[in-house]
């Protein structure tokens, strides 16, 4: 039948000629091709020593953000945990006490916030679900560990370093 799109290609199946049937020339041709590949540039990245460039929207380890005054943004609403398809996020909320206003932005905060990095599939849905712009997957590759329990990251690893601490660290360095 006539092809309407004009893209149809009929496969021609001619009987093989003598040189094709004895098979060896084809093998030698293929071997020539593989031999030339020996001298091509290698595609390998030597990972721990050099890192590949990541794309701009690459999703890595999570970080819990602080606002411009260094207060934690997370209000423990639980939307990230709800949106997580891998059930990787758990948290316990707590009420902000008097005198903690410089630590937490709103009256409620997450006293415990845990992400199981073995469950996480780095889909970024938590980032999309968060109404407070508190969680972003902008970190490095999650490092490997020997024990499963070490993959459960708490607030100590997730929360962004505060400005005062950063300055303190810089002070130690300089």
């Amino acid at each position: 039948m006539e092809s309407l799109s004009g893209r149809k290609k009929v496969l021609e199946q001619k009987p093989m000629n003598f040189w094709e049937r004895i098979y060896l020339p084809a093998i030698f041709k293929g071997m020539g091709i593989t031999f030339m590949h020996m001298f091509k540039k290698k595609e390998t990245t030597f990972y721990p020593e050099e890192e590949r460039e990541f794309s701009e929207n690459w999703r890595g380890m999570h970080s819990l953000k602080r606002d411009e005054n260094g207060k934690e943004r997370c209000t423990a609403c639980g939307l990230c945990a709800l949106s997580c398809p891998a059930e990787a996020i758990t948290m316990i909320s707590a009420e902000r006490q008097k005198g903690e206003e410089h630590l937490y932005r709103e009256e409620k905060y997450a006293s415990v916030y845990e992400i199981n990095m073995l469950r996480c599939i780095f889909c970024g849905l938590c980032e999309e679900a968060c109404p407070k712009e508190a969680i972003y997957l902008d970190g490095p590759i999650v490092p490997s560990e020997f024990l499963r329990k070490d993959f459960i990251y708490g607030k100590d690893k997730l929360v962004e370093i505060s400005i005062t601490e950063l300055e303190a660290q810089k002070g130690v360095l300089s």
Partner: protein
Amino acid sequence: MEIAFLIEKVAVVVILFVVTLTIAAYSTLAERKIAAFLQDRVGPDRAGPFGVFQPLADGGKMFFKEETTPNGANKWLFIAGPSLALLTSFLGSAVLPWGQPIEIFGRIVPLQVADINVGILYIFGVVSLGVYGLMIGGWASNNKYSLMGAVRGASQNISYEIAMGLSIIALLLVTNSLSFKTIAEQQHGWHWNFLYQPFGFLIFLVCSFAETNRVPFDLPECETELIGGYNTEYSGFKMGAYMFSEYINMFVASAVMATLYFGGYNYPGMDFVNELLGPTWGPLIGVAVLFAKILAFIFFFMWVRWTVPRFRYDQLMNLGWKILIPLAIANIVITACVITIFDKL
């Protein structure tokens, strides 16, 4: 005199053993390196500079892995399989001449363990024994895949042994001898048998690929169809023994091809070099040349492995019985006619 003879034989055997093991061990690294290079990768390079200690690491890994025996396996045959495979692969190198007789401390030492006058028959016997290791291992595993692999290996080896033997007969018409020593000596300088028997060499090459169970004839151990074939149930050092025997087989097959068709330790201008360097160093150059040829063949084996896809089973049998055997017989007839005509002239 007798003791000196014993010492020199033991020395040759030990050196040959160590060299074979080293080459087999480093073949595993070379295989991975060549595979990597042919696929634009770098291959293992972490253990030592350029990965030179990788075989040691692999060996250590094999040694410390758990050895499992399947429940329904025949325990003795399960152990006998890899042992036999390793044993028979070592036996082949005994009759090959590794160089011209060499003068050490005033004694002329032949670089050959045993010069038996039916060396080629011996090699054939040992090669056909090699399939028993594979067969016993596959049968003893009590696994259908392993049995399939073993049956394939046995039928493949038998089919290709015929074509291999026929291609050798044409060579024997040229050399008039079954002794490897004589055959190697006849190819002095550049009179390599390859020049007289290029067609026979091609058949022999294809058959030796089949005999060593290398790609494209690796049907006994194809992973996609038989999840590993005859060595599916093997782990730890028994698996290592199978793998090792495969690489030793490859080394011996390369050595046989180099000796039978590519002049062994002979090279153009060898008389001049021998006179220049004396009776000790001259033959050693020949040994180096032989090993260069062997390594080239091993590279060729690996090169083909990472280029050509595996044959289907019926294609394999068609190639063996319907193409290679008739071609080998035709080769014998033509060679015989040509020799007869030249003799009459």
